[in-house]
């Protein structure tokens, strides 16, 4: 809070909501009241912010993993519907805490990783290039208490082409053979 000037305390509302969510897993009503008191703003204003952003969970979510499957067009074309089927089978109904209290899964709009579709955000990390099998494995790993490695599950480093590089493949680009000694400085005046 010391970072916020006294008269601009309210600017801290989103970071604090975020902190609360990190700590509790979700934003409860008493938390909203406490934030309002802390920042000296009306409760309804905090509630407005909290309801505006879908990242703030206003209901309890799974203790171990909150699985947010992207359902927007690129992911859908690449098979997010199957991922959701897996979630339904493994966890239960959408937007509801699983019976054991450890999992919740949701359908999200585009999370901006279309090049690695289909993908899901689980807690704080992106799990990409998922297949029904790999997602199932991830859920099982979480169930065992492990934290599976985030990132691509198709062996990619990030979002490079799946079948290897298609451009910049000529080795002469990199071995220095194309380099030539400079004879004149570009844009320099020709010597008189």
């Amino acid at each position: 809070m010391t970072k916020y000037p006294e008269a601009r305390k309210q600017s801290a509302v989103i970071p604090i909501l975020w902190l609360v969510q990190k700590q509790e897993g979700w934003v409860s009503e008493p938390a909203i009241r406490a934030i309002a008191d802390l920042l000296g703003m009306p409760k309804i204003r905090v509630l407005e912010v909290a309801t505006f952003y879908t990242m703030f969970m206003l209901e309890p979510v799974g203790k171990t993993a909150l699985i947010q499957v992207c359902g927007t067009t690129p992911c859908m074309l690449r098979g997010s519907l199957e991922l959701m089927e897996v979630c339904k089978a493994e966890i239960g109904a959408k937007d509801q805490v699983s019976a054991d209290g450890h999992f919740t899964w949701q359908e999200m709009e585009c999370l901006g990783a279309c090049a690695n579709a289909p993908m899901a955000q689980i807690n704080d990390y992106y799990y990409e290039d998922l297949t029904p099998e790999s997602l199932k494995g991830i859920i099982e790993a979480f169930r065992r208490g492990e934290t599976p490695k985030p990132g691509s599950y198709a062996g990619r480093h990030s979002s490079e082409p799946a079948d290897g590089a298609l451009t910049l493949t000529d080795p002469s680009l990199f071995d220095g053979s194309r380099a030539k000694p400079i004879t004149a400085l570009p844009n320099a005046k020709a010597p008189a």
Partner: protein
Amino acid sequence: MPKAKVNGKEVEFEPGMTVLQVAELAGEEIPRFCYHERLSIAGNCRMCLVEVKPGPPKPQASCALPAADNQEIFTASPMVKKAREGVMEFLLANHPLDCPICDQGGECDLQDETVGYGRAGSRFTENKRAVEEKFMGPLIKTVMTRCIQCTRCVRFATEVAGVSELGLLNRGEDAQISTYLAAAVTSELSGNLVDLCPVGALTSKPYAFSARPWELTKTETVDVMDALGSAIRVDARGPAVLRVLPRVNDDVNEEWISDKTRHAVDGLSRQRLDRPYVRIDGKLKPASWGQAFAAIAAMVKASKPERMGLIAGDLQDAESMKAALDLFRSLGVANIDCRQDGSVLGHGPRESWLFNSTIAGIDEADAIMIIGANPKLEAPVLNARIRKRWLTGKLLVGVVGEQADLGYKYNYLGAGPEALKAFANHGPISKERPMLLVGQGALNRPDSDAVLHLIAQAAKSMGVVKEGWNGLSVLHTAASRVGGLDMGFVPGEGGKTVAGMLAASEAGEMDLIYLLGADEIDTAKLARTFVVYQGSHGDAGAQAADVVLPGAAYTEKPGLYVNTEGRVQLADRVVFPKGEAKEDWSILRALSDDLGQRLPYDSLEALRRALLNDHPTFGHIDHAPGHASAATFDVGALGRDGVLADAPFASPINDFYLTNPIARASVTMAECSRSVKAARGLLAAE
């Protein structure tokens, strides 16, 4: 001044105006939902789109666009027409087609604009959304599916009423207006939300399904629930007053009214006195006017002037008070008082009991010291005005008295005369236009003469009264008070005050006390006195009375009221008095015959002429004197030096919703009072 062209017509405008305002200057009507001239600009309904040159080739929201010099504005071009049709179509996409069962029907902005600017049909074939109803307290009925998210209500609650309890939750299609966890709106101004709502989402709960606007007879009059004299329009159907709406009067209430003004109307048809009663064998029995007058005349003849008294109530019009005053003076009675609360004002110059700064003057004030008042309860509309000024950042507020939540921040100096004394020794101040807002809580005490003296000294040393500014402002709580004081409705030579009369009555020294609509006194003390009650409601006064004369309520008689500023306002008759009840002045005129002291006027005009002759101030209709006489007003001479008590100043209003007989007869007000108390109980429990 910059100039702009509106549809080819050139107009000059003030710098800083918006395109919408400029178009209105040119006489063009711009449809709008979210824009309201007394609220901040939101620009979210998109109904006010116009085409502007130079500018991007697309329609612009005129409410939020500053007008520029040499701008060309088109309000009826094909582009504008198409844009508005589109906006209308979007607004109506989710709006239910329930106009036939909607209370807003007939006075609905959305209906009107649809007729004016909408398309013939809708292309929307999806499911309409439905929104849960919200609970917003006993006065506001919600049908949130009708809401078009203009957020006027949110802005009103936050900006004018000063209670940030409403908000727009969620976003996009799911957006909805709500209070925090469905709590009731706690403002005394919450009824105005209903007026502001351009659709039928927020409607009046007590008025639900009562009438259609076109069935109502509309009468413009003034309010008597507090001493502001807010401009109101009273809507009646047949003999029943159904609702009260605000009128615009920038000098008094802008366009707001309090919930009591608006919703106490159902009290006008309950607990009414519709025929005379005379107490026989300890019970009030119906009687004729003749019998009632005869009983009074017999008592008056058997009594002496010093054993008779007259007390006027808080809702009386000036005419009836004048008639009563003349009648009792002619009988030689000096025990006359209109100050039921025991206020000490009434002697000395007129400025000493007026709100001299005027209500509009608050907009110029740069410092207000509130002494012994809780303006939020005593005059909510005035409090909103103070808040408006405070929001500009140019107003410093201090309070001596109750430390209540007023909706703005203030420096709290203390609760009682001690703190006032410390403040009075303050010496000259650097403020240009300081105000001392003096409430009845400081003036109705045994030591009020000394308190007034202290206030007067403070006013003098701080330059509160000077050429061109008179900041000594008395906030009254009774609509009749200033009128009564203006005509000298105070004890004559050797006369007793209200407290004196009550004490004498308890001691058996009074034969007759005439209560002219006076209910706010301890009627238990009147047991040994013959009491005549003239008024409209069967409240405390009537129950203690031996003779009851049915009078007219404020909506049933034309009358003059003087508000706390000294502004004389003409109220009009909306409906006729109930049953055998008569206008109050005519009852007194008839009674004067029986008492052998015939009053010299046979018509209201003649009575008004007499009033004007004796007290010329009543001739200045709708004029507040303000600082006109500030130069000659010796403020330092007010009050008397004396011993101050320790007791803190307490506002005379305990329960905002139940301050007068009409409000106490109102079911709606009782419910509000209950709901506020319940909310308070909850808070205390936390």
